[in-house]
C-alpha cells in the first residue's frame, strides 16, 4: 500500500469558504452566521478571499453538529463552544499539575 501524503491545516494551509463548507457539510449561510456570532474568525478582508484556520475548522464542525443534532440555536452554540474550550483548558492545566 502506498503512503498517502497529507496536508496539515494550519496558518500555511488555510481553507477557503467553499472548502470549509464542504468539509463540515454546511452551506455558507451557517458559516456567515458563525462569524457574526464570533464563533469563528476568517482571515482576509472580503468574503471572496476569506480563509479559515484549523481552529475555525474545529469550531465550525462542533457548531454544525450542535446546531443540527441538538437543535441548539447559534447563541447557545457559541456559549457551548466557549465552555467546552474552557473545560479543555482546565483539563490541560490539571494534567500539568499531576
Amino acid at each position, binding site marked *: *500500500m502506498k503512503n*498517502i501524503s*497529507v496536508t496539515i491545516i494550519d496558518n500555511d494551509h488555510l481553507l477557503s469558504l467553499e472548502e470549509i463548507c464542504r*468539509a463540515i*457539510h454546511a452551506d455558507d449561510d451557517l458559516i456567515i452566521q458563525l462569524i457574526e456570532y464570533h464563533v469563528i474568525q476568517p482571515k482576509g478582508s472580503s468574503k471572496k478571499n476569506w480563509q479559515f484556520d484549523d481552529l475555525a475548522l474545529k469550531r465550525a464542525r462542533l457548531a454544525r453538529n*450542535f446546531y443540527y443534532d*441538538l437543535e441548539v440555536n447559534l447563541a447557545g452554540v457559541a456559549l457551548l463552544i466557549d465552555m467546552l474550550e474552557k473545560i479543555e483548558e482546565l483539563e490541560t492545566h490539571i494534567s*500539568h499539575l*499531576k
Partner: protein
Amino acid sequence: MEFKDYYQTLGVSKTATPEEIKKQYRRLARKYHPDVSKEKNAEEKFKEMKEAYDVLGDAEKRKAYDQMGSNYQGGDSFTPPPDWQYQQAHQARGQQHHGQADFSDFFESLFGQHARGARHQQNFQQDGEDQHSKINITLEEAFRGGARRVTLSSGKNKRELNIKIPAGIADGQSIRLNGQGSPGFNGGKNGDLYLEIHIEKHAQFSVDKKDIYLNLHVMPWDAALGGKIEVPTLGGNIAFTLPANSQTGQKIRLKGRGLPGNPAGDQYVTLAIYNPEIKTEEQKKLFEEMKSRMSS
C-alpha cells in the same frame, strides 16, 4: 442484512406519539452526543440513534417503515421487497440535506439514494463528499511523525489507509487527505478526508499545543548545590545545569524542545525536590546534622 428495530434503538414503544419520540431523542442526544459525551461507544450509539430518529421522527418514513416492518424483529435477516421504492414527497429537514451519509445498509436500502430512484438520474456528474474522522496518535508519533496505518469505518465499510503523520502535529489539529473522501460519480471529483488528531495521554509528559510539560524529581543535594542533571525530552535525555539553591515549583524552559514546527514548541520543566528515604543509621545522622546546622 439485518433488520433494525428503530423503536428499540430509541427505547420507545411502537405506539409512541411523535412528541414522545422527539423528547426521547433529545434526551438521548444530550447523553450520547460524541462531541460532549464521556459515555463508552458514544459515537456508535449516537449514529444509531440518529438513524432511528431520521426514520421515526419523520411521519412519512415512519409509516413506510411500520408497514414494511410489521413482520420483522430486530436482528432478523432482511431483504427489501422487490417492488420497494421510497419516494420522499419533499426534503423534510435541513438535516437530511446536510446529513453525513453514514447510515447503515439497512437504512440505505430503504431510504437511501438508490431507493429514492437515483438510478434514473445516472447521467449527473457529482463530486464525492468530504469525510471526517478522528484518529489517536501517541505523543512520540506527534514528535517524530512517520508512517501509520489507520482503519476507517464509515458505517457500512471498513478501509485501511497508510498515511504519513507530519512531525509536529498538535492535538486537535486536522490533516487533509486529498481525494480520500467519498468517490465522485460519473467523473465527478472525489471528496477529501479530514482526520482530526488526538494525542493520547503520555505517562511522563503532558502537552499544550506545541509545548511539552514535565515534572522532574531532583535530589535535595542537586537542588542545593546546583550542577549537571539529566532531563528527559521527547528527543532523548539532555544535560542541564541546575542553578544552586533551586526550589520545588521552579520552572525551567528548554527552548525549542517541544513539538517541532516553525517555530518549534518549548519544554517546561517544573522541579520537585524528592526526599530520599532514610535506610541506614549513617544516613539518619547526616539528616540530623543538617537539622542542627541548617535549621537556624
